């Protein structure tokens, strides 16, 4: 499959199945469009069709370049992976990542929270050290030969149970030595309880810190108030600025991560607001919400959102040139060192490699399924009981969703989010159409940015 598009003055050709990305001139762009209809058509036929529009020698030269790429597997490459997926489905999977719901409680009352103010359709609870220990033991025991293990402290608000976070990190460091594993700890926080002690600990122990902030003050406060209705922006922003500056100085990863909704469709301004506050590792996600929620993204919002991605991409390039660039999670794309095709085919690993653990030790396929008893997989005492469900998740890949076979972005989103699919269609192997539209736009924007940076001599 070949996907071609024009963006910000660049003609971009994505050869989907080889992963090759080409920036081409107008003539080649036209020729590829023609050859795409019949890749085996004789050169003379193609040349005759361009008679008069361009000098014949130039058309011949351009066509030779197209054929060269074709012969070297960089254009009109075939999808040779489907057989590999069948083998891949038979593979023995191991667990390599846990999302620990360290606190099903929160000191904010965010309107869109899929955890329903931290409680996940259930009761308020904090994870005990004993349950957390069993979860880490389960992870090590289920991880086979995999050395790198990931543990995310999530909630609710994990800092409401900070002592257990600290104790579990200490236990993990002990386990690392005993089992020859390497833990990468991460934490996602709303910032309310951030203080110097927490920052110092996280700077030492956390590979990544995700700080939740939605953007401009009014936007943030509307969706992320305290339980008394007061906005949280003024309290958390100075703390996030201090924390981010420390991590930046230490060369440690962090993300300022926002959620945009129907209420702030001009979300590019919110991302730029992050940058103006001095943050430089940014993420902004569309809200996940029931279709009838007033803040939900609607199909008619898609063109507006796509335009926002264009605005953001152009502004990012401008700021990069001015020496005040920043990264935006959804525009990050690694064309030379990106994931292998197995990873791209097999998806996020929810329900197989990645599990969520509730405060009382129940296991779910991911944080978004927590609270839905139909997806209860087992617990940290007995391990996985619902192996049938694990097998269902194992079979989720780009070929199990028929829409993906027609989509150029399939190796970038890997078939999309199973939870989004379930929420909108009642099954995990379908697609969430709005999410797909936005993902396609983000992939196009990310590649355009690469093209522009290459143009300026700064790409990898």
């Amino acid at each position, binding site marked *: 499959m070949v996907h071609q598009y024009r963006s910000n003055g660049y003609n971009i050709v994505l050869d989907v*199945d*080889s*992963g*090759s990305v*080409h*920036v*081409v*001139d107008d*003539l080649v762009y036209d020729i590829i469009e023609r050859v795409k209809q019949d890749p085996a058509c004789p050169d003379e036929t193609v040349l005759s069709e361009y008679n008069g529009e361009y000098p014949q020698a130039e058309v011949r*030269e351009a066509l030779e*370049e197209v054929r*060269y790429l074709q012969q070297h*597997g*960089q254009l009109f490459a075939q999808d*040779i992976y489907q057989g*590999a997926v069948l083998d*891949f489905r038979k593979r023995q999977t191991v667990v390599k*990542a846990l*999302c620990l719901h360290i606190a099903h409680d929160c000191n904010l009352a965010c309107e869109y929270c899929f955890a329903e103010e931290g409680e996940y359709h259930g009761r308020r609870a904090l994870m005990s050290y004993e349950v957390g220990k069993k979860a880490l033991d389960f992870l090590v025991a289920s991880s086979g030969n*995999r050395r*790198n293990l990931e543990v995310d402290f*999530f909630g609710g608000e994990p800092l409401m149970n900070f002592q257990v976070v600290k104790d579990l990190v200490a236990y993990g460091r002990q386990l690392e030595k005993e089992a020859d594993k390497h833990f990468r700890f*991460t934490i*996602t926080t709303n910032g309310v309880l951030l203080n110097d002690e927490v920052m110092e600990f996280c700077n030492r122990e956390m590979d*990544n810190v*995700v700080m939740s902030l939605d953007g401009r003050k009014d936007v943030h406060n509307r969706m992320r108030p305290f339980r008394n209705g007061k906005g949280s922006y003024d309290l958390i922003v100075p703390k996030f600025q201090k924390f981010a500056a420390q991590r930046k100085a230490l060369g440690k990863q962090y*993300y300022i*991560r926002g959620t945009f909704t129907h209420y702030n469709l001009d979300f590019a301004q919110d991302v730029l607001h992050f940058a103006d506050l001095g943050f430089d590792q940014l993420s902004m996600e*569309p*809200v996940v919400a029931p279709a009838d929620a007033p803040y939900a993204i609607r199909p008619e919002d898609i063109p507006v959102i796509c335009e926002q991605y264009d605005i953001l991409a152009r502004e990012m390039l401008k700021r990069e040139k001015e020496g005040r660039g920043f990264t935006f*999670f959804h525009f*990050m794309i*690694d*064309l*030379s*060192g*990106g*994931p*292998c*095709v*197995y*990873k*791209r085919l097999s*998806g*996020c*690993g929810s329900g197989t*490699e*990645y599990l969520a653990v509730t405060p009382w030790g129940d296991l779910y396929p991911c*944080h*978004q399924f927590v609270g839905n008893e139909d997806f209860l997989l087992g617990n940290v005492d007995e391990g996985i009981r619902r192996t049938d469900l694990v097998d269902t998740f194992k079979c989720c890949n780009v070929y199990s969703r028929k829409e993906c076979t027609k989509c150029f972005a399939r*190796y*970038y*989103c*890997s078939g*999309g*989010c199973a939870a*989004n699919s379930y929420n909108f269609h009642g099954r995990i192997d379908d697609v969430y159409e709005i*999410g797909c539209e936005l993902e396609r736009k983000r992939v196009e924007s990310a590649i355009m940015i*690469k093209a522009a940076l*290459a143009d300026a001599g700064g790409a990898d």
Partner: protein
Amino acid sequence: MKHIKTLNTRSLQESMKKGGCGECQTSCQSACKTSCTVGNQTCEQKK
């Protein structure tokens, strides 16, 4: 090439031969948590 500039160096088809070690980061453990973004991750072998 005069008319074409190719941006990437890693072929997906080549990655089939050596890939699949599984040491890479789980996608939802990064900054997303609500969508599936795999293409922006880095291969652990290429670090």
